[in-house]
């Protein structure tokens, strides 16, 4: 099985490549990248003229919902949404039902990816603690052996500094990156656990004051990020800060990186592309945790992406069913889907109106996240698995509920014009979109 | 577009109101039990003018009220006019209430006014005085005192303009185009 992707602008940050060329896939692997490859007989041709040909995108922060919440998303819809967004590698978070805290759930996720998925690779991230209660460590070593590529407290942020320190020490022992949701829940009223119980539901500021909604102050993230970084400096382990949303957090990460602390960070397209103004009208599709912040926070995150403080883009894809979002703002769950909008929102915000060039953007969506978790992905080097995405950087389209591949439609960009569109996605040499 | 037709001049209005005042006094053999109630909007200044004729003729002041019928209309679902204050100066039970309005047309305003009046007591009788009766009744209602009978077509509109509200006294007949 051979595929020849012709005449595209091939961008691969992993080998500093940016040139119009043809790309040949053979036996599921990248076989050759040259200008004007002669079509070997039997190769299917894909005309990529005017398109950018990049490594398949890598998203290290996705809520797969499987097992347990397949009504929100199942493996088939998740991988279809990923393909439509240009993603070929996903790392899925442990807040499943049951919690991804033991070998059997890891194996279940991996086997479903194989049997129900479309070829998009899924890597499980294990919970730092049993049942995500942050009381007892989960079996990091066994989880790693089963296939977990990191541990995380996402959605159930570690509060107890002593337990956090033990997590870091044990993760360092086993050799796993700890991916942290940094939130001081005393300041936010509980975060996810506070939904429907009077906890904060959006950024604290002008909009929350006007709408009469309980706010989550920006300092709640900054304090938690500082705590995590200070402990990481002491323990010397690899810590990754999930979904950075505030200017304060960016500044803290920058200063710890400057000290050589092994900390990395990601930001979601919604956190640099939208502000808390999107909540007006009590739009529950603009409700997520951390919440949408302010313009100055967006600007700081963009600056962080430019100077490397923020290493990569991750969507925090968090599907929720319509009936869960179609309710009072207080009671609606946090989270939005993001796989199918990540590229256009990032292109519009960071490249068209922002300081990044398209090569830098591709790097933040491929090589950088792959390196961060040492994944064998995010590259077009010859011999590597042929995960390839071809996208148009300027095609306009409108995001409609009907065409969203994800099982859930909770996007803040519904019915808006998107610029930049994935035209084809190849996973392991097979065209899946 | 044709010019609006002038049905009454200021002098005609004055003469008609004076005659109506005389007729009311004559019908009720004086004014002892009479209460004047103007229907908002233009019935109110008209009733005040009739009251001043009463003073001139009989040297007698009668209680003068104003009735807003917005809350009693039968076309509420089509248009809800902002209601204004109703002011009934005394208990009207046992009194002769003279309702005053500018134009009598379908009779629906008067129906609403009779209904509204009910909430203030049980009058001995209710009589109706109008400046213009233009016909086209849709309810079994008639006026007791009429300033001027004016046959009109259904499409026309009779516009009563009064000094107190519009700055001048005149009654016009407007055709459909002029009504816009």
């Amino acid at each position, binding site marked *: 099985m051979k595929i020849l992707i012709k005449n595209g602008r091939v961008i691969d940050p992993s080998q500093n490549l940016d040139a119009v060329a043809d790309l040949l896939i053979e036996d599921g692997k990248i076989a050759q990248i040259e200008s004007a490859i002669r079509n070997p007989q039997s190769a299917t041709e894909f005309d990529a003229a005017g398109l950018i040909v990049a490594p398949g995108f890598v998203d290290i922060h996705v809520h797969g919902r499987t097992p347990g919440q397949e009504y929100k998303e199942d493996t088939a819809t998740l991988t279809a949404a990923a393909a439509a967004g240009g993603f070929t590698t996903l790392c899925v978070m442990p807040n499943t039902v049951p919690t991804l805290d033991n070998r059997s759930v890891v194996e279940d996720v991996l086997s479903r990816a194989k049997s129900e998925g479309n070829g998009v690779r899924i890597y499980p991230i294990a919970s730092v603690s049993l049942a995500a209660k942050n009381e007892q460590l989960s079996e990091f070593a066994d989880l790693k052996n089963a296939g977990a590529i990191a541990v995380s407290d996402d959605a159930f942020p570690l509060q107890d500094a002593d337990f956090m320190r033990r997590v870091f020490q044990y993760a360092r022992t086993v050799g796993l990156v700890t991916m942290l949701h940094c939130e001081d829940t005393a300041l936010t009223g509980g975060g996810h656990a506070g939904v429907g119980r009077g906890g904060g539901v959006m950024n604290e500021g002008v909009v929350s004051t006007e709408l009469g*909604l*309980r706010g989550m102050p920006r300092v709640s993230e900054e304090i938690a990020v500082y705590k995590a970084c200070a402990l990481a400096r002491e323990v010397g382990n690899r810590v990754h800060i999930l979904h950075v949303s505030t200017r304060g957090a960016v500044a803290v990460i920058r200063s710890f990186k400057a000290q050589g602390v092994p900390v990395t960070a990601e930001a979601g397209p919604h956190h640099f592309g939208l502000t808390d103004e999107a909540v007006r009208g009590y739009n529950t599709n603009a409700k997520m945790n951390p919440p949408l912040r302010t313009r100055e926070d967006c600007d700081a995150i963009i600056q962080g992406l430019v100077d490397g403080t923020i290493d990569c883009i991750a969507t925090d894809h968090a599907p929720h069913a319509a009936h869960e979002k179609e*309710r009072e703002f207080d009671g609606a769950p946090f989270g939005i889907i993001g796989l199918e909008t990540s590229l256009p929102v990032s292109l519009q915000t960071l490249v068209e109106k922002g300081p990044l060039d398209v090569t830098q953007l591709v790097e933040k969506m491929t090589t950088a996240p792959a390196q961060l978790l040492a994944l064998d992905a995010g590259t077009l080097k010859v011999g590597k698995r042929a995960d390839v995405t071809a996208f148009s950087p300027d095609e306009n389209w409108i995001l409609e509920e009907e065409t969203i591949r994800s099982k859930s439609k909770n996007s803040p960009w519904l019915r808006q014009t998107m610029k930049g569109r994935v035209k084809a996605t190849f996973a392991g040499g097979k065209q899946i979109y | 577009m044709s010019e609006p037709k002038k049905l009454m001049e200021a002098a005609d209005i004055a003469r008609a109101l004076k005659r109506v005042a005389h007729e009311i006094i004559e019908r009720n053999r004086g004014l002892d039990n009479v209460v004047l109630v103007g229907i908002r909007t233009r019935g109110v200044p008209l009733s005040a003018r009739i009251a001043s004729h009463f003073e001139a003729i009989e040297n007698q002041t009668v209680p003068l009220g104003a009735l807003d019928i917005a809350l009693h209309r039968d076309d509420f679902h089509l*248009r*809800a006019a902002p209601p204004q204050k*109703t002011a009934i100066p005394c208990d009207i039970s046992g009194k002769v209430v003279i309702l005053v309005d500018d134009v009598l047309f379908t009779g629906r305003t008067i129906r609403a006014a009779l209904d509204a009046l*009910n909430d*203030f007591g049980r009058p001995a009788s209710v009589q109706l005085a109008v400046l213009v009766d233009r016909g086209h009744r849709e309810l079994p209602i008639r006026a007791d005192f009429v300033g001027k009978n004016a046959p009109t077509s259904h499409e026309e509109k009779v516009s009563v303009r009064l000094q107190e509200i519009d700055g001048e006294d005149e009654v016009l007949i407007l055709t459909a185009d002029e009504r816009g």
Partner: protein
Amino acid sequence: MKRKHLLGLADVSATEITQILDTAEAMREVLSRPIKKTPALRGKSVCTLFFEPSTRTRASFEMAAKTLSADTSSLTVATSSVSKGETLKDTLLTMAAMGAGCFVIRHPSSGACELAASFSQKFGYDFHIVNAGDGCHEHPTQGLLDLLTIRQHKGEIAGLKVTMIGDLLHSRVARSNVHGLLKMGADLTLCGPQTLLPPEFGLLDLKMTHDCDEAIEGADVVMTLRLQNERMNGVFLPSVREFAALYGINARRLKRAKSDAILMHPGPINRGVEISDDVADGGQSVILNQVTNGVAVRMAVLYGLLGGEEN
């Protein structure tokens, strides 16, 4: 009125507010009649849907609807937590299927009325929504009745010095009044401890202070807000005693206002906390006028929403 719902005063113009207040004046006259009943809303069905206990607001709306001859029904939905039980959508559609054409909603979640309004016409039923208080967001009829009360006592609202004191953070009454008073041109001062006075209010065209005596100085209108029980002791305030000492209105403090200043409170009053007994029952208190005006304003709102468009 050309609107379908009354969700808050944030999107109601000064002209529209004036129109509602004018109508409410006429409604006050109806309430003074020997027979307090007019047929304007005959055949209309108004459903009060309360997800939070409230006796006076509900009674006020029901009296308003009944005075205008609407049929009323009521549903009290006990909710210990908004994340449990029947959804607002299902409750609403169930009552709409029974024929309710207008819902008066009280709900503990901010924005619940916006959500309710979004269901009208979407599932085959057409209805009006009137916000009777949603979370910490708005309580527009309370704002309107306060404006009516001020107008009655002071004439023009524009240029009046109005001081609002107490828990501005959690008060939906405060938010509606801030919108209403600013639109009508009042010179507004907000006063409370910083724990209950979000700094974001300072971005509006108003003054803020933590000093109650300073706030009251020269005021035409002193408006106090109800302090919710659950906020009285703990993290927002150390004690009722200290709040009363710093922000309670008593005769001595009220003397700083203009001699003809009026004193308002949305009720129910915590006597001796927000207002001392002597001033609550004193000559400057217009608290009971507010209650009467509440019925008149709600009549005006129902009349305006349920009637056809004025032509």
